[in-house]
């Protein structure tokens, strides 16, 4: 596999960092958000410009500086990273539009700070996607943790403070206490941290060490929300909705999952995991998370909390898919990053739109809301379809591949888990939609008068909903990337 040396990856990371001074210095909100747009579009352009090369199976490499013997701050764009980067940079644009609508609609305070850290978080995300070794990944992972803290704690009140604490405790605590030592042990054992298909280990290390390392790394990347390291996610729901959307669909959780997948595929390598039979352990952890999270989601009344637990479950799909160690399963898991992203961001946009328009947060208060906000609720329906994994939405494909993966690896219990959890997904999404449209006039809480959220909020969610449908008809790009990544 030939590699190209190019500065593009670095630029893709830096572009949203470089815009921060502009944001700070810009006088009027319009100028500020103008800059954000410029940055977002340039970023997408740079990322997209690398797609053809990647599709031809090439890798784009750029080394910034060697910090330790054998370890450098280094970028490598491969298929998997490209898949993730593409999703993130596309959805940033949409999220930006939405944020403008949301923040202005609620007239939130200190919006400049909000947009700045949003931008920083995005460059950290792209950095994770393009990082070539565990050290670089850790660098940007931490950067993302600290950049998202002010976003989570945006409201600066007691509640925000306590959940901000929880967020830090889980994310930073786990990464320092587990990932850092694990990383150093790997470095001490092997002398390198570069990701590679066959892993960095010689395979002669004792299984116990490998198991401990694997668990340290998998749980250490707490952003993946694998139980029991999940409860920061519902807590982080105090954040403004666009932030939650970013956290859940684009940046944070996906970065966590991405890192876990990288560890499985790049650090340990499929062969080693298969030989030591470590994949199954991860499978069962993931399966447990999936089922438990879905069950908890059923019992949640707060819309955002329900979505949060649904996210926790969905993330473990991805981990599960990769941990199956079967090609199809891995394709399923990787594509699920994209599919779930589009679906889930739609759902969050809808939740936010409802909040902006009606100030309602709880599902029990949304009976008949479809009559008032039909567009939003239709989008919500599509999003939930995608998350459940039913056609005609992109989610269908990832689920399909996952199921095939379980068969390929003949892990029957996992198949059961997948199917039953899909049912659970349906069970906690459809009632909302049903109640929203089909309810007797007397139990409806909204009068029959269409009154949508501001246009800035509606457009993005329509776009993303359309996106998830489009992904059903044109999934090839992501599937291709995923295949390249698994090859």
């Amino acid at each position: 596999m030939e590699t190209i040396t190019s500065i593009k990856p670095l630029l893709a990371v830096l572009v949203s960092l470089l815009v921060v001074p502009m944001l700070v210095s810009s006088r009027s909100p319009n100028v500020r958000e103008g800059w954000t747009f410029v940055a977002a579009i340039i970023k997408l352009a740079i990322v997209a410009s690398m797609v053809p090369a990647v599709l031809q199976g090439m890798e784009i490499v750029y080394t910034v500086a060697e910090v330790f013997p054998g370890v450098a701050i280094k970028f490598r764009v491969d298929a998997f990273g490209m898949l993730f980067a593409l999703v993130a940079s596309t959805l940033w644009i949409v999220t930006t539009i939405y944020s403008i609508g949301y923040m202005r609609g609620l007239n939130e305070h200190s919006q400049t700070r909000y947009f700045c850290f949003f931008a920083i978080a995005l460059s950290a995300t792209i950095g994770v996607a393009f990082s070539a070794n565990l050290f670089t990944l850790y660098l940007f992972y931490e950067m993302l943790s600290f950049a998202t803290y002010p976003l989570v704690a945006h409201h600066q009140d007691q509640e925000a403070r306590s959940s901000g604490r929880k967020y830090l405790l889980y994310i930073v605590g786990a990464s320092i206490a587990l990932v850092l030592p694990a990383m150093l042990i790997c470095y001490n054992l092997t002398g390198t941290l570069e990701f590679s298909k066959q892993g960095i280990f010689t395979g002669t290390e004792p299984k116990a060490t490998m198991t401990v390392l694997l668990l340290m790394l998998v749980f250490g990347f707490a952003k993946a929300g694998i139980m029991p390291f999940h409860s920061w996610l519902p807590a982080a729901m105090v954040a403004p909705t666009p932030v939650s959307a970013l956290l859940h669909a684009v940046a944070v959780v996906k970065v966590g999952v991405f890192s876990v997948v990288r560890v499985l595929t790049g650090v340990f390598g499929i062969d080693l995991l298969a030989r030591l039979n470590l994949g199954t352990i991860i499978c069962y952890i993931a399966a447990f998370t999936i089922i438990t999270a879905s069950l908890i989601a059923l019992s949640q009344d707060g819309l955002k909390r329900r979505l949060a637990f649904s996210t926790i479950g969905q993330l473990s799909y991805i981990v599960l898919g990769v941990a199956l160690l079967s090609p199809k399963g891995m394709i399923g898991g990787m594509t699920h990053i994209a599919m779930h992203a589009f679906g889930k961001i739609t759902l969050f946009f809808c939740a936010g739109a409802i909040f902006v328009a009606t100030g309602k947060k709880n599902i029990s208060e949304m009976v008949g809301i479809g009559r008032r906000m039909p567009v939003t609720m239709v989008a919500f329906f599509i999003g939930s379809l995608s998350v459940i994994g039913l056609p005609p939405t992109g989610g269908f494909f990832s689920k399909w591949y996952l199921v095939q993966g379980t068969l390929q690896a003949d892990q029957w219990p996992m198949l059961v888990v997948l199917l039953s959890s899909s049912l659970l997904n349906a069970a906690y999404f459809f009632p909302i939609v049903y109640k929203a449209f089909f309810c007797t006039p007397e139990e409806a809480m909204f009068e029959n008068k269409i009154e949508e959220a501001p246009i800035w909020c509606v457009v993005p969610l329509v776009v993303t909903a359309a996106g998830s449908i489009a992904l059903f008809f044109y999934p090839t790009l992501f599937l291709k990337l995923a295949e390249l990544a698994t090859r």
Partner: protein
Amino acid sequence: MREQYPAIIVVVPLLSALVISAAGWVNKRLCFPIAVAALGVAAFSSIGLLLRVMDEGVIVYQLGGWPPPMGIAYYVDHLNALVLVVVSIVAFLNVIAAKKSIEQEFPEKAAPFYTLYVLQVAGLLGIVVTGDAFNLYVLLEIAALTGYGLLAMGEERAPLSTLNYLYMGTIGACLYLLGVGYLYIVTGSLNMVDIARLLPPLYQSKAVLAAFIICMVGVWLKMAFFPLHAWLPNAYTYATSSASSLIAPLVTKVMVYVMIRLILTVFTPEFVFATLALNNVVVWLAVIAIVMGAILALAERNLKRMLAFIIVAEVGYMVGGAWLGNRAGMTGAILHIVNDALMTLCVFMVVGNIVYKVKGYAFENLQGLFRKMPFTMGAFVVGAMSIIGVPPTCGFFSKWYLILGALQAGHYGFMAALIFSSLVSVVLFFRIFEICYYEPFSDHHGHDHPPEPMDEAPLTMVVPLLIVAVILILVGLYTGDIVNHIIKFAIPEGLV
């Protein structure tokens, strides 16, 4: 002129200190420019010296033209060239930042203050550059005496805490002197390299063992290594910010340098790590130091004291790293001298700015600072990240080497202590960030509460601070070069 750099580094600050104190009686406004110029020259020539060492290797400078061991000689190798650069740059940046607060705190005594400041720097630079064991003692005392003067200028309780520091410091210096005396009595020489040449046949002698232990205890006293740290927190807390932001970053680090110099040059690693094999004991002491420092810092409700206890923990880092007895650990310790000097400078300068504006450093004084002094707090965040050990700030990289050294030495207790202290520092600093960020609490989701106006410290204080913050990140990014081109040669081949 290049070959005179070693002398210039020490002599120029000395001469200009004298000129300042004389000029202070003529015209006070002369003092500050002279001080800045002198420290600038020192910084410049130290950089020149480092470059020269990097391409020529060890430089020997004979004072008075007498060849060692008859006369006193400077030995400049990669190790002390690096430390020289750090010390001089820290002093230079800090004197610029200190101007305003000196004018605010004691305008009428500015002249003697600047004199003591520059003398202190001269003493520290001399300690680092000298190659003569006794000369080191004299310079130690200069740094100490001027330090007492600077620290005692602080609040009401400063004299008492300084007097305690003086007792401890004097005992420490005397013990070092006694250790040198023991070395002299068995070898008859005072020159470090010469002593190292004469020692090997005497490794079994009780006197050499005693000399080593006495020197170490003396140095530990002066660097506030855990059981002997009692003087440090009060002394640094009650001092004026301009003084503490010079002394806190430098003095302890320079003493760590002295310890490493004694281990590496005078009593070679073979003796220290092979013959007496005290490593485990000392590293466990370091572990206790780190843990206790972190816990005591947690107990504080006042920014400056908290930082003082963090220094105690950081000293534990360096001593432990140096005593791990392997290359990675020693690299980590030396690298951490550089990083810790810079990040301590950063946070203490921040304290200086805060005190200048808010007139206090207790936690309740810090409310709403993110709005009030965004630039200062930005630098503070960088410094905090570095102390926590978040890449790409420099603190992470020295911690990396230290942990690696612990792993290679199989000393998991030390590794655990490092991780623990990082976690604790996360708590420490985010506790402060929360106060600066959330409080004072505003009702209903913080909408439309009037944002209090931005009230940043003067430019001469903010600009150096921001420079330091940038340096923190740059040093982090260039760690590879620093280690490969400088520190690698600072550690003798024998140490693997």
